[in-house]
């Protein structure tokens, strides 16, 4: 007699990928049965099934629970909590870190919104929109539905707060030593969860179409996720972990989780030394008066500053 699937059946598997920018990345894989369900789906169904799998995994996966226990606050004396009271002209979007990772010149333009205006790129906006839609239409309703069924399903983890940051325009501000402007962090979603009633964790979600393999290879999103982890921790006081969710059906794994934690190789500030270096460079860009040259071959075709950039190719 075959038993019906229960919550104790693992929906999510975890595999350690390595240390990126000082924090440990883990791949989140679906179980074999879930993987079969995800195969060959058209995009909309895939996205819906992805949300379903992820929601169930977060609320029930033992493997995920185990790696989340080791998450610690990510601290640096140079980075402190901001107020967000100065207004948008005095703040920089956290996306400037992505810009910096791609092209220094692009980051310079982003650092001076009073001087340079970006153009609209429709497919980039639509891509962002798809991320927002995933959170709003699929992911949050799935989690809510599961939480409502929590009693009958005997889930042990409980949601304390779910924040759709795009819908509610929720930002978390940071101050970096010597940088006059505050950095405004706006992840796609933030969830605060009580795991087994024992400990609390803040989960920070960033959703995009780029597959996880590319994210790990090019590393252009990772510093921003790191910054989100710090910003949410300094806001709530609860250790944060970052999730990158790829909406690409070809992405394997579909999701990566970034966990700041101790260990022999990851002591104190060495963990985020690279991030500090990036912030230091951004500070110099804010102070700079001349437009810097790109540091490597930039991707100008998708650059929002292409029409005004003198180095555009």
């Amino acid at each position, binding site marked *: 007699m075959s038993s019906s699937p229960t919550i104790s059946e693992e929906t999510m598997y975890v595999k350690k990928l390595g240390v990126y920018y000082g924090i440990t990345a883990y791949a989140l894989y679906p179980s074999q049965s879930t993987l079969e369900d995800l195969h060959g789906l058209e995009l909309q169904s895939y996205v819906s099934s992805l949300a379903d799998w992820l929601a169930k995994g977060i609320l029930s996966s033992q493997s995920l629970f185990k790696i989340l226990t080791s998450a*610690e*606050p990510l*601290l*640096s*004396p140079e980075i*402190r*909590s901001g*107020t967000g009271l100065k207004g948008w002209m005095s703040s920089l979007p956290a996306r400037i870190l992505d810009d910096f990772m791609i092209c220094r010149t692009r980051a310079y333009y982003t650092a001076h919104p009073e001087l340079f205006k970006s153009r609209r790129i429709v497919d980039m906006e639509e891509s962002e929109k798809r991320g927002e839609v995933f959170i709003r239409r699929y992911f949050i309703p799935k989690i809510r539905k599961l939480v409502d069924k929590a009693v009958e399903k005997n889930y042990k983890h*409980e949601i*304390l*707060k779910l924040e759709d940051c795009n819908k509610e325009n929720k930002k978390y501000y940071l101050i970096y030593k010597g940088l006059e402007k505050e950095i405004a962090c706006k992840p796609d979603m933030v969830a*605060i969860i*009580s795991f087994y*009633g*024992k*400990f*609390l964790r803040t989960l920070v979600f960033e959703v995009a179409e780029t597959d996880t393999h590319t994210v790990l290879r090019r590393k252009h999103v990772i510093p921003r996720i790191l910054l989100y982890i710090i910003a949410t*921790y*300094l*806001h*709530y*006081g*609860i*250790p944060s972990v970052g999730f990158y969710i790829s909406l690409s059906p070809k992405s394997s794994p579909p999701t990566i989780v970034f966990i700041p934690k*101790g260990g022999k190789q990851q*002591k*104190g*500030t*060495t963990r985020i030394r690279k991030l500090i270096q990036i912030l230091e460079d951004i500070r110099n860009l804010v102070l700079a008066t001349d437009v810097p040259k790109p540091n490597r071959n930039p991707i100008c075709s998708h650059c929002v500053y292409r029409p005004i950039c003198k180095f555009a190719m």
Partner: protein
Amino acid sequence: MIVEKSIFFYTSPVFVKLSDKEVKLRKGTIRLRDFQYELLKRFLERNSLDVILLNAPTGAGKTLSLLIPFLANVEDKWMYHGSVGIYPSRELARDQMISIFNLLIELGASPVDIRELYEDLKDLSGDELEIVNEYVRALEVELDDSGYIPVILLYVTSESLNRLRGVISRHKQNITSNKELLKYLRGKVAGKAFRIIFTVPEYPYLLATDVYQDFHRAGIWLYAVLKELGRFLKTVENNDEGSLRKWFRELEVNIDRKRLFEEYYTSREFTENLADIFLLFRAPVFFDEFHLYSGFSLASFISLLYIFMYEKGIGKIVISSATPVKTILVRGKETTKRNYKREKRKDFLELVRRLAERMGYIVREISSNTSSTPRKDFVQIRKKTLIRIIPVSLRGKYVTGAPAFGTLQRYVPEVLKETDWLDRYRRMGRSMILVDRVASVLEIKDTVEKLAGEKALPVCSVKVLFHGDKQQLKTSKIGIRETKLIVGNMAIAFGVDIKGMDLGVVVAKDHLSALQKIGRYGRGEGKDIAEIYLPVPFSKYREVEGLLKKIEGKEIPYNSTGNNKRSHNLDFVTLLKKLYPRGSPDVLVRQGVGVFKAIFPAWVYTLTNIIRERSEIREQLHTAKRVEDVKYIHYFVVLLEEIEKFFEIDKLERKLRKFMRNRVYLTPVGLYNLYSYRNIAGVPIKKYSRNKEILEEVLDLVTAGRNIPLIYMHGEFWVDESRKPYEYTMLWLGVDKADIEYIKSLLGKLDNKILTLRFLVEVFGGGVHLLQGRRKVCRITRLLDNMHLWNIPILLLYAGNSKKRRIIEYLSAIASMIPIYVLEYDNEQGELLGGIYLL
């Protein structure tokens, strides 16, 4: 008439025994009291390590104890460089500085102009000198044989340092922070003289543990140390040599010069710098008025005591108290199979004694020898006092016991009107009325001003808001010493010495605070009689009426001395115990947070010193096999053991580690706030003065909420000027009916966790309101506009059972707890859901 017929009796004067010891200075001689001489004898044994528990009644001369190290120097040889007086309030520290200054002048010391003494300060203007003199006094004491001893009195609090920095930085360009100022004071000002420091516990506490720095950085340092504590506790818990050696090796690597900053965000230079400033406090320590410490500050006291005891160069630690015991409640070990834990009352000083003995100190108890009759070699310290017991019929709801004593202070205006207090005041010329609440102070002040037709001085925690800066200056202790009419609360009852204050009205909530307040009157010598009115609820009066009738018109001894037995065999202190509710034992210190606050600072101190003495300790760690082999770690384990024994906690290491891991969720600034010696849930509260200037004062939110009508505008609290300036009320959180289940479920999930207020407000959402009495102040989500509130650590309690409900109600009445109720129709309180304790 609410006041019934009063009963009066007398308490005999109090005399304290003099010793035959006289210390001679060139211009004066001081004859020591019996207990002071005992103390001096201990101090003359420089090499013995002593913790001295000094028990003497108010006015017996405990203040002079601070001069004992100086007198020991005079008697024998130069042994002590100074003494440090630690007081539970800034007001008391300042008052004691004035008392010691006056005492030294009486002994023939000559005041010295600071400008002549220090080259750097020679250009101070007259105004600047006045400010400096408020906090730094210099004297020269001429000895009997030859030469002078320069003596410096230093008042160290945040207020004094800020004002001193303002002045001194004009003449010394490099002093831009309080840390630099302290370094300057240590090196230049107090360097060569005998220094007497008057301070509050916070300063030595923060300096000894490297936490005297920017809040964010300090919080990060504390987090790193907390993490190390977790690792150490796990090692101790494993209880095997292998784990211990592994941890020793890891620590050895972590404190390597190259790794230090990466691991702990500090450096040896920084640690050495603060240790250098801490030298200012490295002198015999006097914890004065120990009985006034309570709650979590009692837990912090243990850590601070541990730090001072570890600094063996200090040698002598004196803990003086007007009461011989400090009762606290501990849970006790499980006694039956049903995990029932019996609560026990214990004397907190038992922990002090045991810890001191384990750390190599000899614990000595010194008490004053008193008499109620004049005898040879006794000196009078208290006058004969007429006590009038005023029975008061409380209106409205029938209340008895402790709540009746809380309500009683609202009847003081009627007591003043319906008794002959005004005639007595006109005859005696001075009077002081002591109550508990700020609102009562202000209400009674209005009443006495109308009755007496003259201005009264209110003394309580609210200063600037009601009177502006001028009043703040006036309430300095010189002002209090001169004022004819004073209305105050415990802020003035904290040991402040007002000579010639012989008429008073005292309302107290328990016998200990009654004793403390009564101790302010009738001090000193003289045949005149002090008079104190003691209003008591009629219900209580009826209980003790028989006893009072027996002593009506008679004289009873002030306290039982054993040498002055009367026929009725009742002394005043014993009578107070019958007349007032018994002081509740402290329940907070035994909580998880209390135990954490008793242990964590000691660990921070341990690691600070390990870092400072890195080279030596690394060698020890390399070969160590047991905790005893490593300096600093050894005694920290002793502290753990003693706390485990005293609080009767099984597996303390495990419980503490779990507490830190699963119950503390704070930002770095939040952790810094939790670490503080006392809770600091202070918010700025504003008001327009008569000249339309904005007055601002940082007040404890809960205290302000209980006494001042508040409104919340544009992210700031303001005094509601459309109402009376004082109110008998309280702050509470009201939950909309639609949100009850949601909030209950949240409270259940977050029960007993320590969180930041900002987090709590965000998860509670818009269905919860802040109310004061039956008036809505704002939705709590609007509190997010006030940055001062973001990082206040709170302990969340869920009223899940009747015991928890009782605790929340009790703490809401006496401590920094804001209860959470269901918001009923017309803003009434419904079911109690929980409470938030502002830590």
